[in-house]
């Protein structure tokens, strides 16, 4: 209903490369420009939008922002942006840089994602073919580095429900499903669903490592996302226009559930 109205209202001083809804109630919108982030306040009742804040991102002139994410914790008061080889976190309440992960990637950070269930945990990926997990309270060294891809990694996504499942897509034509159980919010031996019939087998724990490799694509895979409806489904999209919808392997699923 209000789509038309808003289309005219979203105005920014720069080209916007991507837009994201605020994760809590969708009352705000984050736009990623070349050198700044723009946050709009949406008033759905009146169908109006106003620029809430514009946050310039420090950095060299030729290095544009490659992506940004809302921090799902702390009432979405933070956003993080991938800028050149760094990740910068901004506090929206004051519009200042709150934290930074210097040299998160040797070449260029392509994407980042917050762990939806565990505060302060962040994953980044980029041109050095590596996926890195960080604790933003200690940004000097990564907690874990995955080196499974053989070219740039374009996308990294945590599963919203079972955050040990990490989805990555890369221009080496592969989509990888990896387990990062050691960094997950689910502790070992914890029963997620109490209504399951069998008790958990202590030996059937999910370990760290690659779980599935989707090689259906025949070109660079630029996007990969988890389904918001089903925690066990994900989709990936490659340059040649192929969309592949995959499921988490059954054994993995059982291992996590049981």
């Amino acid at each position, binding site marked *: 209903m209000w789509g038309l109205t808003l289309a005219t209202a979203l105005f920014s001083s720069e080209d916007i490369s991507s837009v994201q809804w605020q994760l809590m109630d969708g009352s705000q919108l984050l736009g990623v420009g070349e050198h700044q982030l723009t946050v709009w306040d949406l008033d759905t009742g009146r169908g109006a939008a106003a620029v809430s804040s514009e946050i310039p991102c420090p950095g060299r002139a*030729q290095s*544009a922002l490659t992506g940004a994410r809302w921090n799902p914790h702390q009432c979405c008061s933070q956003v993080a942006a991938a800028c050149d080889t760094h990740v910068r976190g901004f506090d929206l309440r004051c519009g200042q840089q709150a934290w930074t992960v210097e040299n998160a990637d*040797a*070449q260029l950070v392509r994407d980042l994602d917050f762990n939806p269930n565990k505060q302060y945990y962040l994953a980044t990926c980029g041109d*050095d*073919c590596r996926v890195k997990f960080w604790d933003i309270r200690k940004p000097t060294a990564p907690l874990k580095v995955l080196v499974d891809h*053989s*070219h*740039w990694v374009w996308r990294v996504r945590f599963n919203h429900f079972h955050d040990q499942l990490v989805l990555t897509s890369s*221009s*080496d*034509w592969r989509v990888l499903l990896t387990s990062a159980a050691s960094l997950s919010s689910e502790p070992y031996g914890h029963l997620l669903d109490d209504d399951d019939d069998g008790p958990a087998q202590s030996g059937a724990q999910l370990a760290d490592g690659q779980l599935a490799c989707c090689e259906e694509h*025949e*070109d*660079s895979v630029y996007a990969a996302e988890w389904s918001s409806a089903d925690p066990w489904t994900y989709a990936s999209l490659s*340059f*040649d*226009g192929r969309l592949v919808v995959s499921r988490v392997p059954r054994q993995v699923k059982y291992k996590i559930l049981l």
Partner: protein
Amino acid sequence: MAAPGGSSDAQRRARNAALKDYYGCKASSEMADNDLYNLNSPHFNPDMYLHQLIKESSLTDLMDTEANIYKQIQSLDSEMQTLVYENYNKFISATDTIRKMKVDFKKMEDEMERLAENMTHITAFSATVSDTLQVRRDEINKLSNTHVMLKKLQFLFELPAQLKDAIDKENYQQAVEYHLQSERVLEQYGTAPDTASLQGLRAESAQSITRLVAALQDRLQDDQATPEQIRESVQLLLQLGQPAETLCSRVIAHAQRRLAGDLAQLTNQVELARAAADSDRPTELRLHLPKDVLEFVDVDCSSFLSNLSLFVTSYKELFLEPKSRCPEAAGRLSDCVRSQMDSLLSAVDSRLSLESAAGGAAVLARALDRLYRRLQASAAVLPDGDAYVSLMVFLCNSDTIPECLAGMDLIGGATERRCRQSLSQLCAHLQQSLSAVRQALVVPAPAPSSAEPPPLAEQLATFLGGLAEQIRATVTDLKAFIQPELSFGVQARFRNTFCRQHVRETVVVGFFRHFVETCRGFCDAAGGEKTSPSVLLLLSRACRDLDTSTVHYLMNFVDDLLRIEDKSGLTPLADINSEVRAAGQQLINHFVRVQGLAVSQMLRKSVATRDWQHANEPRSVRSVMKRVVEELAMMDAQVGSVYEEGAARWEQHNSSDSSRRPYHGPGSQRQRHEWSSYAPSQVDSGLVANIQKLFSERIEIFAPVEFSKVSILTGIIKIALKTLLECVRLKTFSKFGLQQIQVDVYYLQVNLWRFIADEKLLHGLLDEVLGSAIHRCLQPALMEFSVVEALCDRG
């Protein structure tokens, strides 16, 4: 006739009986009949003989027989007479002799009687003499007893003075002798009722003895006393009946004090050496120069050990031989010796640990040799002495394990330390030569000439040569420890551990490991950024050379030099080789990655910073592309100076080159067709690309490369082109933008074939770049191929 016959018969019978008796013949009842008729038989029956004779014989025969017998009787008679006569003569002479003897005996009897008489006289005289002398003798006896008694008493009375005198003159030996004598005397009279004088005497002498004992014990306390004096004092004190237990603890304490002096000197030397090692001050400024390790062992340790041996010898003489005077003496001695040896060995140990690697192994080896010899020499004297030389020997003989440092362990530790030092020296040398290489490679880098390959190869040779030389020198240096003239070097156990564990494993294998580690360090993200690619290249080649020959050669050299035959339990050659090879692979992969990223960085910036939507019509190849090609040519030259071409696909490559070289040759026909395929309609261009992909293999961008120039360059180009592809996909192009890309891609195509192993790969990647650009183009219209060619030619 008959009468003589009859008488001769009786005679004969008697004779026969006599003979029979003589010969002991027995008449037996079963004698033969003819015996009765035999004249010579003992059972001869003359009646029956005669009867038979008369009965059987004729008269003449009888006559003859009679005559015959008569003759025989005659001769027998005469024989008997002769015999009787002879025996009679002998009897007569015997009788004469007996008569003569009777006369002689008579004479002798008289003389004997005279002798007995004389003897009786003598006995009588002697009794008289002795009777007269008896009285005097008793008197003399008494007198001489008194004399002895008086002498003793005189000695007793003089004793205190004598004792005092002897003590004052420090003639303790004499004093003790006096005392012992007086002791005996006093004991003798101990039971006698004490006279005042005796008591006084006793008190006085006791006083002197107390003084004497005090003086002797003072001497024991005196640190300046020589071992001989100590020994004398202890001997005297023992004679004086002082308890052996306290004495031996005193002697030990004295020895400990004396040895502590020596030990202080030792520790002083250690401190000096430590100070020398710590401080950077020049040597001339220091007042006390530490002795070098040889002198240290030679002078200080030797003096300590000889003092200790001296002490132990005298101690054993005093307390342990011939039988132990004090039950704990032996235990105390060995405790004391153990603690002293422990402190000695730990002092030596700390001194040895301060010995820097700069001194050369030979000096240290000699020092250790001396030490070992000294220890061995002392071992004969010291209780459990062998334990201090070598723990093993001791363990064979005894069940108890002493908690001490053994000399052999010390030597083992020192040599092991030495090996570690050598290892760190080698590592330091590696660092040095690495930085030298880095410097040498950095300096000519700015010079823009393609004629610089020689330095790299030269550097490589110098680097490897230096490495090998250093290892050889180190091992040869370390060999000093196992020279046959060294006493400890010949021990099989030491030799074994030293050669196998220390030199081979710790030094040589350890160095190779370190080298591999260092190489890996260059590949790490942290260290890799700062390293110049040429160093990576050189190191990778060095790894390869090490793998193929140098490691093998050096290990053989070491094994030969140290005569290691049994290789079980040692790191096999193949392991080192594979480690080195893996490091080389890692390095070359890293090199490719670094160089690829450098090139792709250029490409990315050039694509990202340009406004492709408002581009002008392309007039030439963009300068970035030219730079990229130049850069690749330089890398090619650099890699070519170190690595061989790589045979794979080269022939095939060459043949296609020749067709490619003239741009307008027949070979370009196919290209034209390929390129023009995009032109008619952009709808099916994606389809074409997809179909192409179906037949092409998946390209691993950061795949491992082989050790050849072509493979390395292919790796770099793959990375660069993939970057170009990804960057192009992020942009939106106008018509002219697309055409610019077309020109650039063509330029790359005609220039990069030289470097790459598989042309299809190059084509595939470049086609994808152009295809993506077409995808991202608002008005996809390609240029005429001839114009593209012309533009590239002009560039």
